[in-house]
């Protein structure tokens, strides 16, 4: 199928280091007195959404924020543990904006847009300053200055952290800045309000349709621009490290209204999560990547060695990351670490009651640094591990295994973070822009805050300037009424199915298909099978789901039905994308494309592009449009961490 859509990245000209500066100067501005004439709708209140809302409110725009949570502070950014990268070079170890840029492009396996990544590295400096000024209690050294640690894929210490709760502290900073604007009357907050559609009139985004989760009422809200900051879609796998409510609905509804969806198959399976323990498991818990600073990963040398860890002598242990990747050791990037762990478990060397994990061992670090230092760095993570597994990681090694964690793919955006629908923006994890095929640790927080605090507020004026003096499209315009009716019809449909199985049952089944066929390792045969299984399961879902209760009061099963419905369509796009991308890169590993040692084999000749999928009414056959990626500043090489 073909489509007339052209993807214009709008990357400014000039040397990479000057592009953002020049661009800021060349875009049009809205003068301070005129900003109050514009209304901006922001969906989502995580790091990206809250920081954008606060900043746009400070600038004088009228902002309305929508979140399906009971308060903005619940957004899943809160669960990020390890830290946030910034090229401050406070440790004099040779860091620089260019090095952060280089590491991020390389870490993303050369599938991101250079200019976006460079901008991200540039504004990383401002983020740390801003958050510190807000009172974010970053870890400090005894002299009172900020401390750093190392994360995977980097050979410098550039990660700022607040114990094991960096995401929480950064989100609370953004949330507090947001509440300050609520107090100032510049931001209006709508909680327990779920966006269920975007309204497009004459090709432009003019508002959204929202369902009140407590009363079931469906209402329209109009604005001059709409910003989606609605996070990623790793919950398509059912078992993931995402919070239970994370979903793709806002992004997918936008996709169905014309926004291209880029690289859906680029998903990150995080290496250090607590292995699943049984069928009832509702989610997987991440153990921060920062643990790999001091923990050593190993498995027994011999398959089926079921001795307790402490009884396995050093000569019978295989510290496989240190052995295979001596330069980076336990700090190789996430995709590399995850695949190595999978190979070990597949070879029968898995540990734990279900033989589904590898060890993350702190014994060496405790001997070298003392238990106090380890406690200071990781006590809250160790406690969490202990609460979940009933094991004490100070005494026995942790057991870990990879789990779906983050999605690099998302709504396609140009350099201005605008989707293919004019006036519709996407920021944070919801867009595809900065991480290529694999995200480095501590870069998600950086990107969310970069987009919200320092990128979107600078460039949104360029779009708005054309509409100065224009009122918003009134929310009783027929275009809104039409979409409202669509939404009501959809919601009622879930209630009338009256089948025999719960929504969660279908979600679990979908998750199993996706994890098996479109997870850490993908093959043509597996993807073809998934592409025949998923639509069949989707049909069964529509006919046989059982949602009880009514639309007029809080109904959590009804909320989930809509989200799972969209996951079914997204899952097909992921498999189609994975099938079309005949190469292995980053988190996308095609079994047909690997080196003799089992490492990913990229094909820059044919696949150095962004694959953007365009909705045409058939979830099984969307149109594919490609944005070629050009690398002028980073040389494409085989990514080696040896």
């Amino acid at each position, binding site marked *: 199928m073909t489509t007339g859509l052209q993807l214009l990245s709008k990357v400014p000209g000039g040397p990479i280091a000057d592009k953002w500066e020049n661009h800021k100067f060349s875009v049009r501005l809205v003068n301070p007195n005129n900003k109050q004439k514009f209304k901006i709708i922001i969906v989502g209140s995580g790091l990206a959404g809250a920081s954008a809302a606060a900043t746009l409110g400070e600038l004088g725009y009228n902002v309305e924020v929508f979140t399906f949570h009971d*308060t903005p502070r619940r957004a899943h950014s809160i669960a990020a543990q390890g830290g946030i990268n910034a090229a401050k070079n406070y440790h004099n170890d040779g860091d620089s904006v260019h090095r952060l840029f280089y590491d991020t492009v390389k870490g993303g396996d050369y599938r991101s847009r250079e200019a976006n990544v460079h901008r991200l590295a540039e504004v990383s400096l401002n983020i740390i300053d801003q958050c510190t000024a*807000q009172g974010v209690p970053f870890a400090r050294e005894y002299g009172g200055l900020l401390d750093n640690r190392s994360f995977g894929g980097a050979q410098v210490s550039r990660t700022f952290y607040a114990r094991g709760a960096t995401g929480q502290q950064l989100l609370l900073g953004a949330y*507090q800045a947001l509440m300050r604007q609520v107090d100032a009357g510049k931001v209006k907050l709508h909680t327990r309000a779920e966006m269920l559609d975007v309204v497009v009139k004459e090709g432009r985004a003019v508002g959204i349709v929202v369902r009140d989760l407590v009363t079931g009422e469906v209402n329209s809200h109009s604005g001059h621009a709409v910003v989606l900051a609605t996070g990623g879609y790793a919950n398509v796998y059912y078992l993931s490290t995402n919070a239970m409510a994370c979903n793709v609905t806002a992004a997918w509804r936008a996709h169905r209204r014309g926004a291209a969806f880029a690289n859906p198959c680029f998903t990150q399976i995080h290496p250090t999560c607590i292995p699943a323990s049984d069928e009832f498991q509702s989610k997987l818990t991440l153990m921060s990547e920062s643990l790999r600073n001091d923990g050593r990963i190993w498995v027994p040398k011999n398959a089926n060695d079921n001795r307790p860890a402490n009884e396995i002598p050093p000569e019978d242990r295989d510290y496989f990351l240190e052995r295979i990747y001596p330069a980076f050791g336990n700090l190789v990037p996430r995709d590399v670490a995850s695949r190595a762990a999978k190979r070990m478990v597949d070879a029968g060397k898995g540990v734990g009651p279900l033989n589904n994990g590898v060890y993350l061992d702190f014994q060496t670090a405790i001997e070298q640094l003392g238990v106090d230092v380890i406690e200071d760095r990781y006590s809250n993570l160790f406690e969490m591990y202990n609460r979940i597994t009933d094991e004490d990681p100070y005494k026995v090694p942790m057991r870990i295994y990879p789990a779906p964690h983050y999605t690099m793919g998302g709504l396609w955006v140009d350099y201005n973070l605008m989707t293919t629908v004019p006036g519709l923006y996407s920021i944070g994890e919801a867009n595809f822009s900065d991480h290529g095929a694999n995200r480095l640790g501590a870069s998600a927080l950086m990107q969310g805050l970069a987009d919200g605090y320092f990128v979107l507020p600078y460039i949104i004026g360029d779009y708005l300037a054309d509409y100065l003096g224009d009122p918003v499209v009134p929310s009783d315009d027929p275009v809104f009424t039409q979409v409202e009716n669509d939404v009501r019809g959809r919601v009622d449909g879930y209630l009338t199915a009256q089948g025999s199985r719960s929504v969660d049952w279908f979600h679990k089944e979908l998750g199993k298909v996706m994890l098996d066929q479109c997870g850490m390792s993908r093959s043509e045969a597996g993807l073809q099978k998934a592409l025949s299984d998923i639509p069949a399961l989707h049909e069964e879902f529509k006919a046989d789901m059982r949602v*009880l209760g009514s639309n007029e009061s809080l109904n959590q099963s009804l909320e989930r039905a809509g989200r799972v419905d969209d996951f079914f369509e997204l899952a097909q796009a992921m498999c189609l994308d994975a099938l079309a991308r005949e190469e292995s890169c980053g988190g996308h590993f095609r079994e047909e494309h690997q080196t003799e040692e089992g490492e990913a084999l990229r094909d820059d000749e044919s696949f150095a592009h962004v694959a953007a999928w365009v909705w045409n009414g058939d979830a099984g056959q969307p149109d594919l449009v490609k944005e070629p990626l050009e690398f002028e500043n980073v040389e494409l090489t085989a990514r080696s961490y040896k």
Partner: protein
Amino acid sequence: MNVILQVWRQDGPQAPGGFQTYQVNGISEEMSFLEMLDTLNERLVNQGEEPVAFDHDCREGICGSCGVMINGQAHGPQLGTATCQLHMRKFEDGASIVVEPWRATGFPLIRDLVVDRSAFDLIIEAGGYISVDTGSAPDANLIPIPKVVADTAFDAAACIGCGACVAACPNGAANLFTAAKISHLNLLPQGQAERWTRTENMVEIMEHYFGSCTNHGECEKACPKSISIDFIAMMNADYVKAKFKNRRLVSQI
């Protein structure tokens, strides 16, 4: 293992509520408390009964969404643990467990175990921030902060806003929640400029929605982050000072 649950069911704020008894058999002690509720809900749906509504999200003890009274204790029997992190191995086989929503006037009920905690947002809105517009911050290392100060500020900032402190308090007071935020910001050099106005404004909004503290200390015991009631003492001290200082703002600090 098997447990007998008595769960508070209520269709809406105005509807009458009451306990329903459910026998939940064949659960694993490796389950979290919420996974046990998931299992109950799955069975209820299969039987054609509406599932129990409860708030939850991250299930890692950090988002603050979840929280129910378990046998009269906010978040249940395990110290420093949110409901989602509580596991069934902490209960005896055959145990009888009473599950109720947070009980506090400041948290009106929405449905079953779900309550409205938006009054917490109003307390933050009253001053739980440092006024610094984006872009106006100096270099982060310009202000050295002694490690012990940063660490103590973090201890206070660890609050997840779940509301267990209010639910556990015989007076339904929100002093631990409010004190945690006030102390986090008041301890740091960046927070000094607004220290006295912040304290006065936040405390007064708090008192509008919640009961008064009489130092029972139940909040600290219920807090999933074990936040110390010492912070309430700090807040009280700052509140008294604020009553004087705010009259002559120019002579503060």
